[in-house]
């Protein structure tokens, strides 16, 4: 008997065929043993001692899958027709919340080096909160403190805080969702997705491009630390690679647990997108959605 690599994302199943995503690519695989299952299943992966490369390999794939989900937000314009402004503001809420879940991860991380990388990343993200505040205000005309996130946005934020506190390794795999400094592929992809959503808003696009330029700069990145640079990227490095080396679990079920945790974030990203549709289209929430003063009219 063999087991499916847990990083394989099953999109749907038919008799003897699995359809899913592996390493960012859509794949369909027959399960009768004759199909090229080596694409998604390493027949020996469970028999080897677990190592940092295994952890990085599995979680990198899981990361690619959820990153695809996030980028899908930017390309789902037809489904989101007329609601790009709303989803951009929800993304601003999420980006402003990034330092909080990073702080939760840093607080609970047992490894001092990763802990320091996390707290620097938190500070880096906190330094860029101004960008997201500005974008939210440009779009809605309201300060972000007055805007009330959709429940689906709050749920994603809560899930990230829980992940950070419970599983810093799995959390490290999600960091690129919020653009980690120095990883150009992540910032480029996010810049493209966000600019697509802001295609009719020049001032917003200017903010996004400026943000993308600044976070890739090694000189200005607060999160650039030696250990991270040594871990694979010329500037800030890959937090997941560093975490894979330093927080390596010794048991395969622990690694599987990481994948399960990442699937939860994937679910929440899906809800994040559908939430905009549900609350603004079906439930006709007022726009912009403002916080209520619970004591005063």
């Amino acid at each position: 008997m063999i087991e499916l690599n847990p990083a394989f994302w099953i999109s749907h199943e038919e008799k003897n065929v699995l359809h899913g995503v592996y390493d960012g690519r859509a794949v369909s695989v027959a399960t009768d043993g004759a199909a090229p299952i080596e694409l998604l299943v390493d027949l020996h992966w469970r028999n080897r001692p677990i190592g940092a490369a295994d952890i990085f390999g599995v979680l990198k794939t899981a990361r690619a899958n959820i990153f695809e989900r996030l980028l899908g937000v930017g390309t789902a314009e037809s489904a989101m027709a007329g609601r790009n402004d709303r989803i951009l503001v929800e993304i601003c809420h999420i980006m402003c919340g990034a330092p909080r879940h990073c702080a939760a991860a840093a607080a609970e991380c047992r490894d001092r080096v990763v802990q320091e990388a996390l707290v620097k990343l938190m500070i880096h993200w906190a330094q860029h909160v101004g960008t997201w505040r500005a974008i939210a205000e440009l779009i809605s005309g309201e300060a972000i403190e007055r805007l009330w996130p959709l429940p689906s946005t709050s749920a994603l934020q809560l899930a990230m805080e829980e992940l950070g506190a419970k599983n810093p390794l799995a959390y490290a795999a999600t960091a690129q969702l919020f653009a980690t400094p120095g990883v150009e592929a992540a910032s480029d992809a996010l810049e493209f997705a966000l600019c697509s959503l802001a295609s009719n808003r020049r001032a917003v696009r200017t903010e996004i491009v400026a943000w993308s330029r600044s976070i890739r700069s090694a000189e200005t990145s607060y999160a650039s630390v030696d250990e991270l640079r040594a871990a694979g990227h010329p500037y800030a490095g890959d937090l997941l690679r560093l975490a894979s080396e330093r927080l390596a679990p010794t048991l395969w079920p622990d690694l599987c647990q990481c994948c399960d945790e990442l699937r939860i974030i994937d679910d929440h990203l899906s809800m994040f997108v559908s939430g905009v549709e549900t609350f603004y289209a079906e439930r006709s929430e007022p726009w912009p959605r403002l916080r209520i003063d619970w004591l005063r009219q």
Partner: protein
Amino acid sequence: MNATTALASTDRRQSTPVPSADVLFPEIRPATQIGDRELARFGTILEIDPPTAWPMVARLVQVADGTTSLAVLADALATDPQELVELCLQLEQHGFLWLTPPQGPIPIPLFQAEFRRWVRHWVDQIFSHPIWDEILDGQASPAVLVGWSIEQMHYTRTVIEHMTHAARLAGETPEGRTLLRHLSQEWDHYLLFLRGCASVGIGDSRIRDAVPLSSTRVVTTFMRQRAVSDPLVYNACEALLEGTTEHTDSVVAFFRAAQKRYDYPATFIDPMVNHVKVDESFEHIDIFDHLLSLRDSLPRGQVADILGTCAEFADLLTLWHGDIARFYSSKPAPFVREQRRAILLGDAS
């Protein structure tokens, strides 16, 4: 529910002395709607009688923002201060304004009445999802109510993950003892749902190992965060949850109608009905009131925190119900979300 109340000029508080207009700063509460000679809020419609009083009431509503005393307002409105005090006392009694010193604490009886108004509003919101009507009409998949029961099982099983924190943080206090008692009564309620699921063919070990929806987990996360931040706010959220089963008769009638419509076995529906009745017999709905009774008043900031947090929680529960409906609607009944860690593909030897 619409309640209509006529505001009569002869209506007075009989037993309490009328406070001075100098120390009262009226503040109109949120969600007050101004109509044509009437005010409305959460189903209470206040008709102004006599109609000649309406212009003054309408102006009062516009300017009562908690920063100006009634004495000053009476001057501005060219009316007798004591008459204005009496009018405002009635508006306060019907839940349209606060009448306290500036930034003063909110007396517990006023807060309790206000909290109940909001809870009724939020419970309506939570159950506004069309899936509940679809279940009654037979339009929904039979998997939905089974799925709802499965997710309720998952959530109630995690009471241990949050109520424990709230009880621990409350310490050796009357609140702490109340929370421990609540925990001792609540921690095993998931077994009721477990039994119900077993009767539709979902075995004990299968459901215990099943994976909750991510939206179910996030409800637990929300409660965990509140449990460690403020036990009173946490218990307000608990009260909101219990409020969803406050009208026992209508909830039981819903379950029985669903049983008949989908031919669910009685052994599936009975545990859900029992859960509602057990909560009622334990008087869980009153726990928050009991905790409030240990105080005279609440600071305004804490009132705002309680109401804001419960509103967020109501939103989250609305999202949760929608996600349960969406996920299970497309599944055959009964459907269990299995762990996907180990998918056996065949013999590779």
